[in-house]
């Protein structure tokens, strides 16, 4: 992506997803970067700036013509009084001025249109680039980062922050040109008419400038605080709505409202502070401007009285000042825009500049699959956020050859899922290594690795889309027969074909509600469709009954015959035929062996087995 990464690269490994700034410093780096992005569209920017300059210049012409008209009218009047009227000539002059004025107005309108349109267009183009870059970046960032950063926060950045940056071209860069020319040109003309009067008329400019830079720093601080608080509010609302059943179950609405009110009040306070800061600076600027106008009128009036300047010249000076009234307001907006763009940009770049800790090594080669042998060699791992000294996993070693099956059991939190997720590099091992056909998985490309390993996740994420789309998610080119073959294998086909809309039935958050078992079977169908060489089932049959599971296993037999398979399960009947079973506890293998040897060992596995074995044998449960 062509988003330049001038900021030093930071790994997403340690990033907590928050953006902090040093408020005391004027941070121009972000603004410079956004501005540089705008100039990646040099043609449009050049045209936009040209239009801006033209609009500003024509804006400057208007008061001149107005002054001219007043002078002419006055001339006519004077002529009429003194009886030396050349009425026709005077009227012709009026007509000319009127015509010119009309022309300038039309020109100004066209130029302003071009200015605004091009400014917005470049903004939208930047927005497009940023949106794509952000989308791609989110796809690349490692899951441990995603674990830590709230989805509400990511959405705020992807919508509101991009908006804030996008507006910068229009309300920032081009407006800056416009204001500079207007004020600069105005100063030039005003000083030309009468240096003293000009200086008086322009007296407000430096004051407004100083006021503006003060306001900018404070506003930026406020914007940042506001974005943070809005993010917090988003988080609260999103979780409340997502967990609405829990809230209802415990009648916790009051508690939840109180939580909301607290954060909401803080956000409102900040929002109001921003309004006050903003209003204070803009109204003060307008005030100073009007004071300058008063001074101009007074001194100018005196000068007209003494005959140093004409009434027309005074009109012109005033007309200029009038034209500057809008820009004075706009300076206020611009400061707001600067503050907003730099904050939003900062928050966005904060994400865009991260280097994914899980990424292709510089010399990564695609995985070369020969047999498809998976080896864990003394693997250790700890989650980055895990502050305790105990490891999530340690000293895990095993090998699976194609056609073989490894079973994993253990209590919750033993590290079973973690083990599965290491295999397709959701996380990188902390010690030891994992190889496939002798190649360290960190040395091969991620895409080739993940294509080779299919994991059926414990909790299947369903996309809000049709069933066939969901099944074919990992193999989008799959045709209907392939899709049906895998749903048949997963024992889902008969259910789906019984639905009124069959494979077109929408599932997901608002679609038909699938039972836990149906979801898991869909996840299995989805995972086997791309025909990966290594298959991992992470407790993915917990909600499927044993008989159905057996059917799935039978249907899969031809498929798994030449594949390495890892099965994580609580139900031991799922594991009985495994070539090796690892009993995991606190991240360590405490027992290993095949079913028979583990039974013979008489340890934890045996105990678990006895608990689950057949119907009434464990009647002591009740006692």
């Amino acid at each position, binding site marked *: 992506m062509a988003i330049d990464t001038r900021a030093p690269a930071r790994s997403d490994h340690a990033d907590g997803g928050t953006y902090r700034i040093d408020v005391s410093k004027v941070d121009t780096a972000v603004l410079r970067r956004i501005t540089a992005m705008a100039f990646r569209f040099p043609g449009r920017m050049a045209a936009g700036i040209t239009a801006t300059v033209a609009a500003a210049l024509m804006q400057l012409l208007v008061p001149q013509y107005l002054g001219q008209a007043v002078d002419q009218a006055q001339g006519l009047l004077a002529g009429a009084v003194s009886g030396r009227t050349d009425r026709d000539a005077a009227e012709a002059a009026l007509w000319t001025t009127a015509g010119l004025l009309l022309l300038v107005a*039309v020109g100004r309108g066209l130029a302003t249109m071009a200015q605004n349109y091009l400014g917005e267009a470049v903004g939208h183009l930047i927005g497009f680039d940023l949106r794509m870059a952000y989308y791609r970046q989110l796809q690349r960032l490692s899951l441990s980062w995603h674990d830590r950063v709230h989805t509400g926060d990511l959405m705020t950045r992807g919508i509101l922050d991009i908006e804030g940056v996008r507006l910068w071209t229009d309300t920032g860069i081009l407006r800056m040109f416009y204001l500079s020319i207007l004020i600069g040109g105005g100063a030039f003309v005003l000083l030309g008419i009468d240096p003293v009067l000009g200086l008086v008329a322009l007296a407000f400019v430096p004051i407004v400038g100083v006021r503006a830079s003060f306001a900018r720093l404070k506003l930026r601080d406020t914007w940042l605080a506001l974005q943070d608080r809005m993010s917090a509010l988003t988080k609260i609302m999103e979780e409340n709505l997502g967990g609405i059943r829990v809230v*209802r179950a415990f009648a916790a*609405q009051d508690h939840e409202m109180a939580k909301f009110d607290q954060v909401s009040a803080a956000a*409102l306070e900040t929002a109001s502070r921003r309004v006050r800061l903003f209003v204070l600076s803009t109204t003060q600027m307008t005030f100073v401007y009007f004071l300058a106008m*008063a001074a101009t009128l007074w001194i100018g009036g005196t000068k007209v009285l003494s005959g140093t300047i004409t009434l027309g010249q005074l009109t012109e000076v005033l007309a200029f000042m009038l034209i500057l009234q809008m820009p004075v307001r706009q300076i206020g907006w611009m400061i707001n825009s600067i503050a907003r763009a730099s904050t939003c940009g900062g928050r966005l770049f904060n994400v865009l500049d991260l280097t994914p800790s899980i990424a292709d090594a510089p010399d990564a080669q695609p995985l070369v699959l020969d047999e498809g042998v998976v080896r864990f060699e003394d693997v250790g791992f700890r989650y980055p956020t895990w502050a305790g000294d105990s490891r999530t996993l340690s000293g895990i070693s095993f090998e699976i050859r194609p056609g073989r099956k490894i079973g994993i059991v253990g209590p919750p939190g033993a590290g079973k899922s973690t083990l599965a997720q290491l295999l397709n590099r959701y996380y990188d091992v902390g010690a030891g290594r994992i190889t496939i056909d002798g190649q360290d998985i960190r040395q091969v490309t991620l895409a080739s690795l*993940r294509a080779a390993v299919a994991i059926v996740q414990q909790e299947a994420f369903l996309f809000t889309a049709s069933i066939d789309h969901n099944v074919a998610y990992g193999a989008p080119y799959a045709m209907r027969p392939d899709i049906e073959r895998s749903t048949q294998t997963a024992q889902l086909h008969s259910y789906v074909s019984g639905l009124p809309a069959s494979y077109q039935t929408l599932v997901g958050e608002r679609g038909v509600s699938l039972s836990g078992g149906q979801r898991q079977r869909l996840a299995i169908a989805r995972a086997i469709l791309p025909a990966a060489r290594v298959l991992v089932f992470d407790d993915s049959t917990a909600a499927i009954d044993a*008989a*159905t599971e057996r059917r799935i296993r039978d249907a899969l037999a031809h498929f798994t015959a030449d594949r390495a398979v890892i099965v994580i399960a609580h139900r031991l009947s799922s594991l009985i035929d495994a070539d090796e079973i690892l009993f995991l506890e606190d991240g360590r293998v405490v027992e290993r062996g095949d079913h028979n040897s583990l039974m013979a060992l008489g340890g934890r596995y045996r105990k678990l087995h006895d608990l689950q074995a057949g119907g009434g044998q464990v009647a002591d449960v009740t006692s």
Partner: protein
Amino acid sequence: MSATPTRSTPPKPPLAVVGSQIEQDEELFGRAFDRWVVVRFLSYIAPYRRRIAIGVAAVLVFTLSQLAIPLLVRAVFDDALGGLALADGAVLRAIMVAFVAVVLVNYVANHLMETIVGETAQNLLFDLRRAMYGHLQVVSLTFMDKTEVGRLMSRLQGDVYALQEFLESSIFAVGDLVLLFGIVTVLLWLDPVLGALTLSVVPLLALVRIVWLPRARRAFMDAREASSATNGALAENVHGIRAIQELTREPLNADLFEEKARRNLNTHLRASAFTNVMIPIVDTLTGAAMAIIIVIGGAMVLNRESDIGVMVAFLFYTQRFFDPIRSLTIQYSTMQRAMAAGQRIFEVIDVEVDVADATDAVDPATIDGAISFDHVTFGYEPGNPVLKDISFAVAPGETVALVGPTGSGKTSTTALAHRFYDVWSGAVRIGGYDVRELTQASLGRHIAMVLQEPFLFSASIRDNIRFAKTAASDAEVEAAARAVGADAFIRRLADGYDTMLEQGGANLSLGQRQLLSFARALVADAKILVLDEATASVDSYTELEIQRALKRLLTGRTALIIAHRLATIRDADRIIVLQDGAIVETGSHHALMEKGGLYARLYRMNYASFDDIPADELAAALDGGQRT
């Protein structure tokens, strides 16, 4: 970079899409001024009446001072310097004093007005958001079930934001609008003929808008739709990231997203063109108005029908006159968006509350824990009952297991006990009270639930466990965690009970989340405990330990347990077998086994689970049941 294709594109995969495939909400695109929305809006303004009154006064004063300034300029020209009258410094001084006074008033009024309008606007927005959020806390779950969180969030944030954008820019628009009327009045007062001539360009503007409006509206609407589709796809990328990375959909999704983002870009460019095309039109009209003033006004000055000050004032006013028109034009799309946003906001606030406390609902301090279903019929969609004429009673202190295949209505039964929904007919009683006679808060206190999905909040483990009872002591929290076997792993965390959970408990394993959700229900210390597949992702050994602990905890409490492992079910005092929304049999494990019905058949088939039994086997079991 944005234009170059990222890879040589094979034909597009037929099934691949990004973003929700549910039909978009029918896009509202309101009028720029929707009376209904405005009226509703006014009711939210009511609490700020006093402030608004001051604000309105400030606006009036501000406008008057704004109008006075050109008049004073005119006075300077006419009376102090003007024409041929002998100029007098004293008059100038007097006018200048007035001028400075007006400027001061202008500043104060301006500041007052903008602060009040700005702050009130912020307050209003927060009030509206709160009203929506508060309402969502009470609307029935039927509504929440079929509404995606993302869509609600877009109303809570996106639409409120659209209103904010409008209110912020409208501070100026309102002032401008008042000014517009003021200027028209002053113009006509200064010189009716010249005034009328100047205003004659306005109808032209109206004509232009008639042509412009329908097209522009279409363009704005397209832009909005494209933008919500793009954001929806982004949301999918954020929420489904695990599945996306797992199935290596990144490149393809990026391509698909690019199509959406590009459409978003193009529609916005078009909308922007429509907005800006009005600028030269308005400017041309301004120019025309000024030309009229110069030619006609000049002639009138010449004929002494008018004086030069009037002409100067006219020129000044005319410029200001078109400013508001121009900004109102540019803000047209913002206004439209705001009205649509307002409508969507009020739609949420207006969602009917089906399940509400009766006016005379009671909140007894204690109940006895009895549950009874009396000929209950219930369903989610009209005409399709999920529970059909169900009757059963659970005595206080009894443990009852609900079993039956997926979809038989177990979860629905527990939901009715808590009055998540209202029954169609019949009655549900808790502790002898019809649930409709109790307040929902009291149901929440007397019934603790472990839901099928172990939802946790981004908060500390401690706060999650005591979610049901914020006042719970640390000892209570720890006792509950110990009972479900979670204490050990929590203590191993560096921050122990104060460990912050990531969103949805992402830093815990699924089994651990289930344990916490279980502990949360225990802390609630309620008379009735409902467990819906509370230990599905926990190994049998841990489950056994939990059951042992439960034995103790359940004394004196009523429990309604849904589980699919027979080992868990067998334990209950009584088992109710549901099938297709009806009770097929009920009794203790031994009684049911002796009876040899559905339960016994399924049990003998050695299903470890009642969930998800294949339809044909189920039919076989039922057949068998009928034959015996």
